[in-house]
Each structure stands twice: as C-alpha cells, then as structure tokens.
C-alpha cells in the first residue's frame, strides 16, 4: 500500500510536472528560435536597405514580449590569422534593455533561453541574440504540481469518504462475521452477528446466525446421542454380566432347593424309621445336606453382592481390593456371560495369579467393566479365528484366553492375552478411539476400549497398553499403581 502511495506521489509531484516542463521548454525553445530568426530577418532587411529605423522596428518586435530578458544585435567579424585559421570576433552592437550586460558567449540555462540567429548584409555580418525568461514555464510547472496535488487530495478525500462508507457497510460486518466464525470454529456456538440491513450483507449475517443455531442444536443432539450410546454400552455390558450372573446363581440355587427338599423328605422318613442305623444314616445325610445348603446359599449371596457392586452407578471411590479375587470372579462372569449370549462360543481359560499381590486401590464397579470388556473382546477374537480357520479346512489351535496378575515395579499388572487373529498394524493406534470397531454392525458400539482406557487412566491413574502380532496373539496390559 505504501509503495503504491509513494509511486503515485512520485508520479504526481515529480515525473508528470517534469515531463510537462520539458515539453513546454521544447516548445519555448522553438518559439524563441523562431522569434530570433524573425528579428534577424527584419534587421537584415533594414540593414540591407540602410533603414536604421527599420532595425529598431525589428527589435521592437520582441520588446513587448513579457518573457524578454534581452535582445542584442551582435556584430560578427571574421579575421584570418597568420596561420591561416579564422578567428571570429563577436561584439555587441546594441542591446535592449540598454543596461543589460550581455555576454556573447552566454548559453541557455534553467532560467533563460538564449538563441542566436545569424544574418549577413553588405553593411555588416551579425546575429541577433535573444534571451527569453523561463520563469513562466517554471511557474507553470509549479502550478501543474499544485493542481495535481490538489486533485490528488480531493480524490483521496473522496476515496476516504467512500472507503469509510464501504467499511461501515461491508468491511465491518464482514470482519465481525469472520471473528464470529473463528470463535465458532474454536467451539463457541453462541455467536450471533447483527443482520439488520436488507441487502446481501444482511442476508449473509442472517444465514450465518441460522447456521450457528443449527450447529448448536446438532451438537446438543450429538452429545445426547453419544451419552445415550455410552449408557447403552454400559447397560449392554451390565446386561451381559447379569445373564452370566443369573446363570451363576442357578447352580447354587439348584443345590439349595433340592437339598432342602431332600432334607425334608429324609426328616419325614426318619420319623417313621425304626432301624437305628438307618436313622443315623438319614440324620448324617440331613446334616451333610444342611452344610451344602449353607455353602451354596453363601455362594449365591456373594454372586449377588458382586452384581450389586457392578451395577452401582454412582461415582466410585478407590478402595483397597483383592485384585486376584476380582479378576477370578469376573473372568468366570465374562465366560458365563459370553456362553449365555452365544451358543457357539467356547474357549479355555488359563489363570495365573501372583500369590503375593497386596491390596490394590480401585473402583470395583468401574474396574470390573474394564476386565469384562477386555475378556469379551478376547473371547470374541479367539472364536472368530477358530471359526475362520475351521472354515478354511485347517486344524486350528484351540481358543485360549490367559489372564495373569503380577507386580512390576510400583504397579500391579494384569495381562489378558488371547490367541486370536491379532490386531493389524494399520489399526493399532485407532482401537482406543470412541466408536471404532471391527465388529459387524450391531455387534459392537466401539466404545468398550475407549471407556476402558478412560477408566484406567482417568479414574485409576493407571495405564493401558496393547501388544499384538497379526495372526498370532493380542495382549492387553493394565497397570494399577500400588
């Protein structure tokens, strides 16, 4: 912008006036030359006729010219030297104005144009030397400069006014729109701009406002849907676990119901039994049954307690837990849960629990979700690989999931390893992303690992990582600080 202004200033203040001056000077030079020529002719004619008044008249021709500085009648004598060369001697014969001291060798300068026009008569040879002032031209140049400057300022002023009007009407609203758009891009979806004018700018503002409102609504809906999906995922995992738990409870209940009923029958038999030995046998059986009833009743109770612990949705506090027991229980639960929902499912489970594990601080209902999620994924993976290899006519290795606990440094570590198809390198860094899943539509929300990752890192200040070899195994590693 500055360079344009400077160029413009240069053009207006320097180049244009200079060019004008040059042009005027050229014309002026020609004019002065012509004038001197005319005077010279007049003088020549007068001298030829020996009309000395005519000489005055010829000189008068230019005397009235207001540019005139001087006009001189110069006598030119040529003398031959001894060496054969010619010397020219010029002598001022007459000058107007009289007081003007003329230097015959004077040449044109910035302030004066000096032209010579020679003449030759029998009476004398000479020349007319005419000096005309360039004052007017210089003045004219100044005037051009001033006029240009004034025009410039006027145009600038008009430009500023127009610019001001445009700015008010276009740039300011557009900049406001840009700022609002930037803020929306950064997440502030409450931005609205003024859009009162009825022209295109106003329409743009209205369209922008509507877009931001729609964006806010879409974002709210998306958040609600996502929240719902997360809840569904939690409910699905709870549901699956409940199915597993329900199955688990049926076994102890089977014993409680049947042994109690049996005991009643035996007691009735005892009433009518007379043989002492038989009576003792019946009594012993009843006692044994009571022990079993008690045992299986407690078993059912602990299963319910586990279920309650898992379903408690309130934000949990970290409590010291027996990690091995928790992992053991949830492995069985995950297994039964999987069996309850998928008849084709099968897998062997290998448990390797570190014997000297100290209590580990965790939130049981949240941590259990992680274990269940990883085990479910592992079971799914091993069965998928097994089925695939069977279909290909191979003799596949039996599905196997291993769960291992150990202490590594300051962390209690849980490793869940499966001999499934492994995770391809290309997707390994995506598996913890929300909604990422390789399962067919309807089989997985893609939230399990992302939720598990958040539970481990944010709620337990722990770590979660994965190693995998495609076609061989996948192993998830959970680390809890102790």
């Amino acid at each position, binding site marked *: 912008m500055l360079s344009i202004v400077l160029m413009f200033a240069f053009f207006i203040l320097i180049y244009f006036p200079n060019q004008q001056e040059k042009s005027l000077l050229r014309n002026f030079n020609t004019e002065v030359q012509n004038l001197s020529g005319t005077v010279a002719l007049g003088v020549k004619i007068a001298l030829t006729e020996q009309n000395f008044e005519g000489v005055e008249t010829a000189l008068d021709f230019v005397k009235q010219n207001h540019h005139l500085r001087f006009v001189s009648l110069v006598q030119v004598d040529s003398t031959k030297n001894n060496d054969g060369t010619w010397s020219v001697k010029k002598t001022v014969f007459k000058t107007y104005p009289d007081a003007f001291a003329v230097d015959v060798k004077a040449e044109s300068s910035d302030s004066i144009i000096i032209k010579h026009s020679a003449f030759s008569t029998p009476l004398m040879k000479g020349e007319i030397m005419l000096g005309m002032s360039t004052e007017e031209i210089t003045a004219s140049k100044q005037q051009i400069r001033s006029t240009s400057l004034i025009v410039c300022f006027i145009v600038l002023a008009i430009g500023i006014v127009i610019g001001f009007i445009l700015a008010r009407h276009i740039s300011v609203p557009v900049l406001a729109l840009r700022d609002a758009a930037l803020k929306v891009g950064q997440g502030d979806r409450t931005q609205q701009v003024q859009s009162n004018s009825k022209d295109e700018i106003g329409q743009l503002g209205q369209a922008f406002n509507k877009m931001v409102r729609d964006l806010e609504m879409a974002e709210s809906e998306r958040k609600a849907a996502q929240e719902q999906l997360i809840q569904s995922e939690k409910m699905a995992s709870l549901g699956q676990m409940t199915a597993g738990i329900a199955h688990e409870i049926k076994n102890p209940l089977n014993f409680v119901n*049947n042994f109690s009923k049996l005991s009643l029958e035996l007691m009735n038999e005892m009433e009518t039994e007379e043989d002492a030995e038989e009576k003792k046998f019946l009594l012993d059986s009843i006692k044994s049954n009571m022990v079993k009833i008690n045992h299986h009743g407690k078993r059912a109770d602990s299963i319910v307690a586990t279920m309650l612990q898992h379903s408690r949705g309130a934000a949990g506090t970290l409590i010291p837990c027996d990690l091995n027991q928790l992992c053991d229980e949830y492995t069985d639960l995950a297994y039964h849960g999987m069996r309850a929902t998928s008849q084709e499912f099968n897998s062997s489970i290998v448990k390797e629990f570190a014997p000297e594990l100290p209590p580990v601080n965790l939130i049981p209902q949240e941590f259990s979700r992680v274990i269940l999620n990883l085990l479910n994924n592992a079971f799914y993976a091993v069965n998928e690989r097994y089925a695939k290899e069977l279909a290909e006519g191979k003799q596949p290795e039996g599905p196997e999931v291993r769960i291992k606990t150990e202490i590594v440094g300051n962390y209690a570590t849980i490793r869940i390893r499966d001999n499934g198809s492994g995770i391809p390198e290309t997707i390994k860094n995506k598996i913890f992303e929300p909604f990422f899943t390789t399962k067919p539509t309807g089989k997985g929300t893609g939230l399990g690992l992302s939720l598990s990752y958040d539970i481990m890192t944010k709620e337990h200040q722990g770590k979660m990582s994965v190693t995998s070899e495609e076609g061989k195994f996948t192993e998830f590693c959970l680390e809890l600080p102790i």
Partner: protein
Amino acid sequence: MKVLIVDDEVDVKDLFLQQFRKEIKSGMITTVFAHSGAEALEILANQEPLDFILILSDINMPGMTGFDLLKEVKERFPSLKVLMVSAYGDAANIDKAKSIGADGFVPKPVDFEQLKESLFTISQS
C-alpha cells in the same frame, strides 16, 4: 436302567444319590458319575453303553462342553439316549440341544420329579 451323570460340580453326585435313593435301593436304577466330558467318554468306551441313559448336567463345563459331548456321543453311540440339564434354559439353547440330537432338556434348578418323568419316558421309547 443305567444312568451316567456328567457334571463338574462335586455336590451333584450326592444330590442324585439322595434323590434316586429309593430307585437305587430297589435296583431300578444304577448310577455312574463323571466330572467331565472326557471322563464320560472314557467310561462309555470301557463299558457296555447300550443300557445307559446319559444325563448331561450343565452345558457349561470346562474343556469339553455339554454340546460337544452330546455331538460326540450321538456320533459314536447313536442309540444312546441323552437328556440335557442346564442353567441355560432359554429357547435358543433348548432348540440347539434338540438339533444336535438331545432326547430331552431339563432346566436348572432341577425339578427332580420332572427329571424322573423325562427319564422314564425316554427309557420307554
């Protein structure tokens, strides 16, 4: 009637012995117990299987599942009758058991009256 009961739960033996005490005493039923599918197959291979009615207790067993065992038994001993007992008592499981060849299905917790009824019905057929 010789009955082979397969269940990984230890207390099942005691339960069946008590439930069938009268039938065992009268000689109507002889019971043999296995704690896994593999053990059950071994027993069948070593004994005369024809008078067995095999009860599979619990589809859910470590190693060989109840369904695996059922399939194996039906292939190797097609005349053997099989009654499934399982905590997975939903329709899908029942249908699957029948499709593999189960001759009956009893859900857990077991109603032994119903079990006895099914046993006798099957043994007559």
